[in-house]
Each structure stands twice: as structure tokens, then as C-alpha cells.
């Protein structure tokens, strides 16, 4: 099965969710800035990465985990991918997870400053605080997703 976590830029919430799913981050500990920065793609993407579906790894059940930055497509992104999967005849092999509704204001402001404006030194500390604040929410989302994947798989 392929699991695609998506958010606005494919750089923060979806990347944390994918890292949690793959065990790159412990679920029971709020991550430090160093732990977050060690995750592949975390706060490292550019505008060219919008729409790119990037491979993050395989979980213990051999599910492939990806991240995607969908810009302002919203929930339409999930529908679009599921619709294309239906056209291709592989809808059962796919789980699409929207992470954007777990993103808080600090993550939005920090992410915007760091990625869009290029003000890394200003945006990143705000982003990290936001990511730490949203961490439990993302853990919850990943737990739900893993259960869904187990039921579907």
C-alpha cells in the first residue's frame, strides 16, 4: 500500500507525520529542533517541490510512505489522487492523508517566513515552536492512519 501525507508545502506537518509513521521520531517525546531538522525534507523544500510526491520510506508492514505539497488545493488533493487511482484501477492500494487541518498558526507563520519569504532565521524558531505544539495532534493523526492502513492492508 502507498500512504501519501499531504500539506500546503510538503515541508512541515506532512513530513513530521511521515517521520512519525516510519519511526524516525519517537511518539512519546516532544521533538527538539535538532530532531526535527534531522528529518529529511523538514523545512528544506523550495517552490519547485510543489506537486512532487517524495518518498520517505517503508514502514514495518512494507507500506510505502510519501509526502506531498499541494499548495492551496485543500481536500481536493485527496479526491484528485483517489479519483486518478480509481481510473488506474488501484484505489485499494492507496491511503491519502491531509495533515493541513492539524497545522497551527505558528506553523503557518513560521513556515511562510522560512520557506516563502526566505527568512529562515526569523521563521524557523516560530516554526519549531509550532511543530512542537502540534506534535500530539500529528501523533494522533498517524495512529489513526496506521490503523486504517492495517485494516485496508
Amino acid at each position, binding site marked *: 500500500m502507498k500512504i501519501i501525507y499531504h500539506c500546503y508545502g510538503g515541508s512541515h506537518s506532512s513530513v513530521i507525520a511521515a517521520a512519525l509513521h516510519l519511526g524516525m521520531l519517537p511518539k512519546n517525546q516532544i521533538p527538539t529542533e535538532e530532531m526535527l531538522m534531522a528529518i529529511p525534507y523538514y523545512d528544506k523544500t523550495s517552490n519547485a517541490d510543489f*506537486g512532487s510526491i517524495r518518498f520517505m520510506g517503508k514502514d514495518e508492514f512494507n507500506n510505502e510512505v510519501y509526502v506531498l505539497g499541494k499548495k492551496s488545493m485543500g481536500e481536493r488533493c485527496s479526491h*484528485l489522487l483517489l*479519483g486518478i487511482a480509481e481510473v*488506474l484501477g488501484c484505489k485499494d492500494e492507496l491511503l491519502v492523508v491531509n495533515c493541513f487541518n492539524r497545522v497551527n498558526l505558528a506553523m503557518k507563520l513560521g513556515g511562510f517566513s522560512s520557506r516563502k519569504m526566505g527568512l529562515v532565521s526569523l521563521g524557523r524558531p516560530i516554526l519549531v515552536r509550532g511543530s512542537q505544539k502540534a506534535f500530539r495532534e500529528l501523533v494522533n493523526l498517524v495512529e489513526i492512519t496506521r490503523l486504517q492502513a492495517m485494516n485496508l492492508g
Partner: protein
Amino acid sequence: MNIIFLGTTGVHHALVAANIYVGHLKDKKYYILKDYANLHLELTGFPIFIGKDKQGNRVYSLGAGKDLAIAKKMIEEFTIIMGYSKSEMLVKPVSIYGEKLLALVSTIPEWLGGRLWSSLLASIIIKSQLPAIKRDIEEFSRKIIDTEDTENYEFFY
């Protein structure tokens, strides 16, 4: 092969283009096409099956909102990730003047007269853009026929 006509909405210009391509629209009565301006269908976000072309390719129209280039890239990468080749999913963006406004108006709720505003705007825009859509699709059809002969789909990417 599957061909997706991708527009900011899937029930206006993209749907008209797809219908021209499969030969369902011979005159100018685009407004009587099946599923034209069906905003309920648009809200589902799923590709709308239009029919098959002369080569047997399955043709769909799809709405992707204002970021067409991102949606196209997403679909193409997704097709490969799912284990299919690029040539099994051809994405044809359909762009017209006023397309973003059309997508915006399509999101107005029905209780605020969304359907009315959408139909009104769509008829003004599409009526004026129909010749351009037809020219674009004629050119696309020629490319498809040429490509079928050589099986060189790289031309489209």
C-alpha cells in the same frame, strides 16, 4: 491509455474540450452536454468519464482548482508511483481566459445563488472562448494521431 482534460473546474471548459475531443460536440450547443455545469459533480473532485476516442482511449475531464501545473505534475508523478507508465495517463491542461474566476464562482454556496452565478459566468466565458478551445483540441487530436503512429508520448511531457 487514459486522457485527462484538466481545467480549473471539471464541468465547464475542460468538459467542453473533452467532449469536442471525443466528437460529442459538433455544433455550438455546449450547454446541453451531459454533466455541463453540474456543480454537485464538481464538488466530488473525481474525474468525470466522457467517453472513448477513436483509438479506444478513455477520456475524462477533471477540475483541479487554480494550480493547474501543480495538479498536472502531481497526477503524472502519482501514475508512476502507482506502478504505471507515463503513457498510460496523458494529462491535457485546458486553459482559457477567466478560468480562475470560473473556479472561484463555482465555490459559491447554492443558497447564495452559486449555481446561477456559475452558469451565467460560464456561458459568457465559454461562448467567447469556444473557437479557441476547438483550435486547441484540433491541434491536440493531430498530435495524438501522430503520436499513436510513433508511440512517442514524450512529446506531451
